[in-house]
């Protein structure tokens, strides 16, 4: 059964109910007590997000300082339930201006009840598109940052738009200047052994889009991916311009993209929602350009001293630079004192996370700064357990660089009024979980 929920609770960290909504009476009102006593107040919290207590099952997620708990007694669709929670939270965020926490819930509880009534009927998720819901669920204080004119009255044909085939875009939008912003954001995930061999490496990328377009435009996006290009050259029966092509392992699309068409023609065509949304996600494991190499040497010199040497090499173009680079080098808990030497940036010892934190604000390409540190340890008598050596972690952002090599080749916009559009494209690569074992 694709039921997502029989009841939904929003609890704060103490277990107080902030919001509760029962959709079906196969679970009782006191079920939240069971959650509190059997999960929240025990060590079970955090060991498994799906639990059965008595005849009911509980799915829960923590979002900032709030637990969202779903209770069911049937064989519900768990994937659907969790995805619903994720989507609902982003809907709430879009209504309350970006934050979702205990205060935001208390301050908007009437609105949340109204939304919960609308987006889940008898446990079945309904339309959760913020853009459409804002047409007719308009509480005071709601600002609509995307639309050009303030919405104060429910639009007369709202109901048709909620249920329409383009359930994510409303009609009659007008912009003076028609603009599209594309952000290609990539996270590089890396797991490297201490010897420098890559154990796992992949890029998860997403294309974020901000559309300020009038009417009902049809868009088509072209990327330099291999399959798409091959298909295109087949159709046009002439070879496309040479250049670097990449192989996408997998892509997923926002619901606005016509999947059947993508499957047959390999083109990404869609009618976009208004404002900001995530058009697609992709994943690449082959041919990843790693922006940084980390070469650590950590020596334990007896029981009270350690020598840490870390060299970080930037392997992107010399004209580019990375921003906000942070290297976290774990040290044992009993670290007493650390003496540093760095050739760039600043380093300090942060005892709360047991790490040496080395920050470099601006990191040019083709350079290799080093950190060398001498760590003094408190010798403890009970020290028997060996130090587990967690991996070195890195954070960074490299603008105008894609680890995958993905490029946007074109973005075409058709609208029956035939207006001109301006397209802006940005690229950025961030660190996902960038770990080097040492």
């Amino acid at each position, binding site marked *: 059964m694709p039921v997502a929920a029989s009841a939904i609770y929003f609890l704060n960290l103490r277990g107080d109910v902030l919001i509760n909504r029962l959709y079906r009476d196969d679970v009782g009102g006191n079920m939240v007590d069971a959650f509190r006593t059997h999960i929240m107040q025990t060590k079970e919290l955090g060991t498994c997000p799906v639990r059965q207590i008595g*005849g009911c099952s509980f799915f829960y997620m923590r979002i900032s300082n709030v637990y969202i708990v779903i209770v069911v007694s049937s064989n519900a669709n768990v994937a659907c339930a969790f995805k619903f929670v994720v989507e609902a939270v982003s809907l709430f965020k879009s209504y309350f201006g970006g934050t979702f926490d205990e205060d935001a819930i208390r301050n908007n509880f009437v609105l949340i009840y109204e939304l919960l009534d609308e987006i889940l009927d008898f446990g079945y998720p309904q339309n959760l598109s913020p853009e459409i819901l804002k047409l007719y669920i308009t509480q005071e204080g709601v600002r609509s940052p995307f639309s050009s004119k303030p919405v104060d009255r429910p639009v007369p044909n709202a109901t048709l738009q909620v249920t329409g085939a383009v359930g994510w875009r409303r009609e009659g939008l007008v912009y003076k200047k028609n603009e599209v912003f594309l952000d290609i954001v990539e996270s590089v995930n890396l797991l490297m052994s201490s010897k420098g061999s890559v154990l796992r490496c992949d890029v998860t990328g997403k294309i974020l889009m901000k559309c300020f377009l009038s009417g009902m435009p049809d868009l088509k996006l072209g990327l330099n991916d291999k399959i798409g290009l091959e298909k295109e050259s087949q159709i046009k029966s002439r070879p496309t311009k040479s250049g670097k092509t990449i192989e996408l392992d997998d892509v997923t*699309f926002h619901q606005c993209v016509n999947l059947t068409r993508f499957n047959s023609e390999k083109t990404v065509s869609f009618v976009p929602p208004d404002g900001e949304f995530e058009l697609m996600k992709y994943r690449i494991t082959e041919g990843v350009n790693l922006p940084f190499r980390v070469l650590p040497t950590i020596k334990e010199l007896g029981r009270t001293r350690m020598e840490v040497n870390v060299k970080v090499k930037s392997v992107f173009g010399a004209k580019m630079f990375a921003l906000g680079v942070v290297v976290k080098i774990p040290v044992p808990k009993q670290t007493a004192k650390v003496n540093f030497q760095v050739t760039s940036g600043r380093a300090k010892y942060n005892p709360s996370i047991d790490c040496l934190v080395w920050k470099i604000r601006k990191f040019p390409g083709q350079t290799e700064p080093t950190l060398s540190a001498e760590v003094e340890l408190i010798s403890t008598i009970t020290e028997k357990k060996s130090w587990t050596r967690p991996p070195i972690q890195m954070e960074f952002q490299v603008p105008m660089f894609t680890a995958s090599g993905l490029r946007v080749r074109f973005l075409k916009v058709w609208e029956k009024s035939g207006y001109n559009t301006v397209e802006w494209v940005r690229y950025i690569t961030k660190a996902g979980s960038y770990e080097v074992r040492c």
Partner: protein
Amino acid sequence: MSGHDSKYFSTTKKGEIPELKEELNSQYKDKRKDAVKKVIAAMTVGKDVSSLFTDVVNCMQTENLELKKLVYLYLINYAKSQPDLAILAVNTFVKDSQDPNPLIRALAVRTMGCIRVDKITEYLCDPLQRCLKDDDPYVRKTAAICVAKLYDINAELVEDRGFLEALKDLISDNNPMVVANAVAALAEIQENSTRPIFEITSHTLSKLLTALNECTEWGQVFILDALSKYKAADAREAENIVERVTPRLQHANCAVVLSAVKMILLQMELITSTDVVRNLCKKMAPPLVTLLSAEPEIQYVALRNINLIVQKRPTILAHEIKVFFCKYNDPIYVKMEKLEIMIKLASDRNIDQVLLEFKEYATEVDVDFVRKAVRAIGRCAIKLERAAERCISVLLELIKIKVNYVVQEAIIVIKDIFRRYPNTYESIIATLCESLDTLDEPEAKASMIWIIGEYAERIDNADELLESFLETFPEEPPLVQLQLLTATVKLFLKKPTEGPQQMIQVVLNNATVETDNPDLRDRAYIYWRLLSTDPESAKDVVLAEKPVISDDSNQLDSSLLDELLANIATLSSVYHKPPDAFVTRVKTIQRTEEEDFPDGSEGGYSESPSHAAGASPPPTASSAPYASARQPPAAPAVPAAPAPVPDLLDLGMENNNNAIVPVDQPATPAGPPLPVLLPASTGQGLQICAQLVRRDGQIFYNMLFENNSQIPLDGFMIQFNKNTFGLAAAGPLQVPLLQPRTSASTLLPMVLFQNISPGPPNTLMQVAVKNNQQPVWYFSDNISLLVFFTEEGRMERSAFLETWKSLPDSNEVSIDLPGIVINSVDATLERLAAYNMFFIAKRKHANQEVLYLSAQIPRGIPFLIELTAVIWIPGLKCAIKTPSPEMAPLFFEAIERLLRS
């Protein structure tokens, strides 16, 4: 921050309710709206604001949609507790359902469906009928779901009013969202009905597959889930379906992807072309991998499902093992699941990489994870013969780190490796023996002792090593004691020298005279007899060659696997249990909540489970070697069948009602079969029949357990909810381990006046039964008053008359039982006497027979009974006089049932 609603949560000094009442009746709109918000705020934090019902409902007639929605929300919460007042709202609902604004029409129908009050339901039908045919798709899609709501409250009404047909018409609606909701509603109705209501034909199939393209993401899930029940006619149709479903794999919504995977996997069963199957496998891999970049909770659901998928089709992810490598910051539940999948995907090709990972995990912080990683290395060794040596060298490296729990876990898995590859790796025993002193966990100790015993001839100082354990023999847990016993016997048989001989005497003495563990004692006696009668055959038995083990732990049975795969994305696939293993009937749950009953399921059981099944747990794959001594060499581990030893329990039953009756004997040959209280269909194969009986002045609960499930069940416990008579179990429930397709019956002694439920007397007795394998089962039974009639109920004629006179006439209650025929006075009296209703006198009045009887229930409450009937003519008048006339209905119920049967 947009809203400022938190102010509604603040309380005022004055009494809150009166103040709210005043504000709700204010003449100002804004004030009323604020007041309703305060009421909702109070409701949310759990205050009872039901007393404001009328005042809130009065605010319902408003143009303001926001206020209307708040009032509706209040109604949904409190209508059930105020059904009579809820009727006040009906008019507004009906009016709203005809409002020109479609939002209001839909809101009215949606809300009415949520109010589960019978009287309201009647009024819902007409608006619902209209809304199902509404011009506006928004109203239709809401009405479609409302039919499912109504079916849940009153299925008959839905069928009578033709809503099912209307719902089926909506499948052809031109609006995709209406179609999706109609499909969801029909699928749910079908699930709760035994009649075929929603059968997918190839025509609806193609219509729905077309609708997929236009639906919302959730609608796609509804449709895919419903279509997954469809059985394609042949390979061609299956290929066709799959072709239209595969584009869904690219959807950003994980639920759509998983439902599409489910559908494809099911259709793949029919597809014969290997090319097509290979191609599909290739297409499914990337989306499954992508699920692992979602939120950790979704990853968890995905991983549990992937675990099933790789068991069925290992090729899909055979090359993707790297994506299951754990990240340092993954939540523990994700790491554990990834590890499980890594073991499943491990192959000769990737084992080196996998081992490096496991080794890395074995040095992490979380103890459970580390243990699982060490165990994983062992499981890979057992699974992959060619990699076994490498696995062992990794284990040895880990032992050298000398982290206590790593060493212990490693020893446990090495024992299994020895079982799998006998006479191959014994050279490492010396290294293992170095860690002997650090072992403090029973399982690790037992494993080490098993190794020493098994290879006693190759370990020079085996006797010394074993001797070091013997000093603490009496304090060791049973697991270790049993192992020590067997190991010492092995040692003695292999090296029959003086040292071992002394040791064996110490051990046998300890294990027979000084222990109260029956398993240990039995095993020791068997060894003793074997050794004293024929040492050569002792060798044959104890040192026999053992069957080679394989790693089939965590491998599901293929029919269960198929069932779980048909439930991908649902709870069933996460729990790895079929749906009926955890979904209990809706009604059962409702009742238990109201009565606060399930509380007992965790802490309320006072009975110890160990009484039921004896002290010996059934041997599992890993503990199998321990039992080597008492098994014939090639036989798999079979737990001992419950021994027919009724005399031991000495319950003083003369009529073959042993507390534990072996399976093959008919239980209670006399008397009709026991009523079925928990049918096997509800109890996941466990059927419970039970009835209260009275035997020799004592009340028993005569129970019959039948295990129709696939798994052995043990550790049965029982708990009774409060009831009128305070009936409760006098001792623990004695049910032996129940193998599949066997049954056992038991007489559970009962006591009275334990937990007496308040209120007027009734015959309801709610029972909870649990075991170690299944969820708690709740069922209810009817208490028959007959079982309470004591043997002391006989009265002298004079005493009878005196009592009759002493009781006021108001204590006399009578009833006509028209359906009952008395054919013979004597037979009737005999029957009544069997239930301790004693004959006093009889007289004839015209053609009527009048019988007088006496009976007595505990605490000495007498029942004076007068029965009036004409022989052979239907109709019996029954009058009773008793100090407790409130018991009369119970009495009539019982006597009617007795005389009718």
